[in-house]
């Protein structure tokens, strides 16, 4: 555990040198929820045609999923910063395995994502009246933590394979567009055309968001949610294994 704790310590040290970053990380999902979510909620009216809840409640899981996705991308971008500072290769000579390095790197950001989820869920419940299934909160936090880690491992593959940060930025822009819009973040999938629905159902963002939606407001069919959660776990483990391999191939 000590090597993972050392990477965690390092990530934390770096992050707390910029409190604006911390503030932004913790509160920006709330911004999405209070601005975009409330705007759409008023435009669509209530109740929203899924599960008998309003759009604010429906969008809560989307906001949390989007935040996981964003934190993971930013954390993976840190590889470029480390390369520019020359510290990346030096760190690879420190007494820790490549897997420990990746786990430590994501751990601090998993903590941030969890705090962020707690703030978003808490304030969503208080100010927007979202009826949270508090008994399922442990599952919700598990979904946020697993989701952030899984997406980080996925992004790490590209950050380690691609040596140019401008190219990586282009890739993440495409990913944001494809993964976030072809998913259940913003809208229910049922009314969508078949091809769109098929694409969204094959999208790991949908798997994570459906899990978060179930564990926050209780919407979703448990058996399907379980299958999606298992699929996301496989996706995360495969991404982790391949990211470790990519890290081993860094020369």
């Amino acid at each position: 555990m000590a090597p993972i704790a050392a990477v965690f310590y390092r990530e934390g040290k770096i992050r707390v040198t910029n409190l604006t970053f911390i503030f932004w990380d913790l509160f920006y999902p709330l911004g999405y929820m209070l601005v975009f979510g409330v705007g759409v909620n008023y435009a669509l009216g209530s109740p929203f045609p899924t599960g008998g809840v309003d759009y604010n409640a429906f969008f809560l899981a989307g906001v949390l999923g989007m935040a996981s996705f964003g934190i993971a991308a930013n954390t993976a971008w840190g590889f470029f910063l480390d390369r520019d500072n020359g510290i990346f290769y030096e760190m690879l000579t420190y007494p820790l395995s490549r897997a420990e390095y990746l786990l430590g790197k994501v751990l601090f950001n998993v903590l941030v994502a969890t705090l962020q989820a707690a703030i978003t869920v808490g304030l969503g419940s208080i100010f927007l009246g979202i009826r949270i299934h508090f008994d399922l909160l442990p599952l919700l936090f598990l979904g946020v933590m697993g989701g952030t880690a899984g997406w980080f491992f996925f992004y790490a593959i590209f950050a380690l394979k691609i040596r140019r940060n401008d190219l990586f930025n282009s890739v993440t822009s495409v990913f944001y567009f494809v993964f976030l819009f072809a998913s259940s973040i913003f809208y229910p999938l049922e009314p969508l055309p078949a091809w769109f629905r098929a694409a969204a159902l094959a999208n790991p963002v949908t798997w994570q968001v459906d899990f978060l939606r179930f564990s926050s407001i209780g919407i979703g069919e448990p058996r399907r949610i379980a299958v999606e959660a298992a699929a996301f776990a496989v996706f995360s483990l495969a991404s982790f294994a391949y990211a470790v391999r990519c890290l081993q191939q860094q020369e």
Partner: protein
Amino acid sequence: MSEAALEVENLVKVYHSRRQPPVRAVDGMSFSVARGTIFGLLGPNGAGKTTILKALTTLNRPTAGRARVLGFDVVAQPLEVRRRISVVLQETAIEQFLSVRDNLLTFARFHGLDSALARRRTEEVLERFHLAPEADRKAIDLSGGYRRRVQVAKVFMVTTPVLFLDEFSTGMDPILKRAVMGYLREEARQGRTIMLTTQILSEAEELCDDILIMNKGRQVARGDLHALKLLSEGVYEVAITFERLPETIEAEIARLAPLRMKINQNTVELTLKAEEGRVLELVSELARNRRVLRVEVSGASLEDIFVELTQEK
């Protein structure tokens, strides 16, 4: 337990890249380094020095052959190797957004030092490297020379038995460089094995107990400074200072086919490979009927040996 600190056997490293022919950076190198020595790996740009250092520090995987650090194989037991080494890489490696003190503390944490020991060592190293006044400044605000100083200072935070330094003195001022060389000698006396790569030959001459010169991925010479000088027996450095530099001197020297020649104002420096008597004759010829202020003839320096062994034939 292995007697040698570093063992390299038939090491080959080939780099492949798209649309480029493969590059054989290291081509069957074998050597071992005894514990507690300062070992210098010398060679011109592209000789393969950094590639070997990367293999020994687990940063790359050899294409063929083996490398071991304190008996641990760099491919099969990379973590065991990393537990026993600290590394100063060629490029400046620093945590830009952390203070100098936090850079040292973070490094210590990675190497498993407990908090109290890490803090005590940090203060010692800050003093030793004259970094105390900068301790709370972020690395991003430091000059390049200071960043390099922090990078080198880090490896004195820990007592890993093997230390790798890749061109460690780049960007360092001469006073600090001298001090660091003193620290390195002290570390070696205490049993630490130090491997350094450098192109500054006076540095290697002054510091290394054991030197390996390589070129194009292969060993061209090996031994301590004395042994290397024997390799280059018959090589002499000559310096002649004239009152006025003769106009034809360049052509005269060219006829002697020197290994190296440099003219600076009215001083001519050349390296000749010939028997001692012949060298003195040649010097006399150059000085004949001219007013000479100073003549100096000495045995070859490491630089001469290096040039002779690595220059394009």
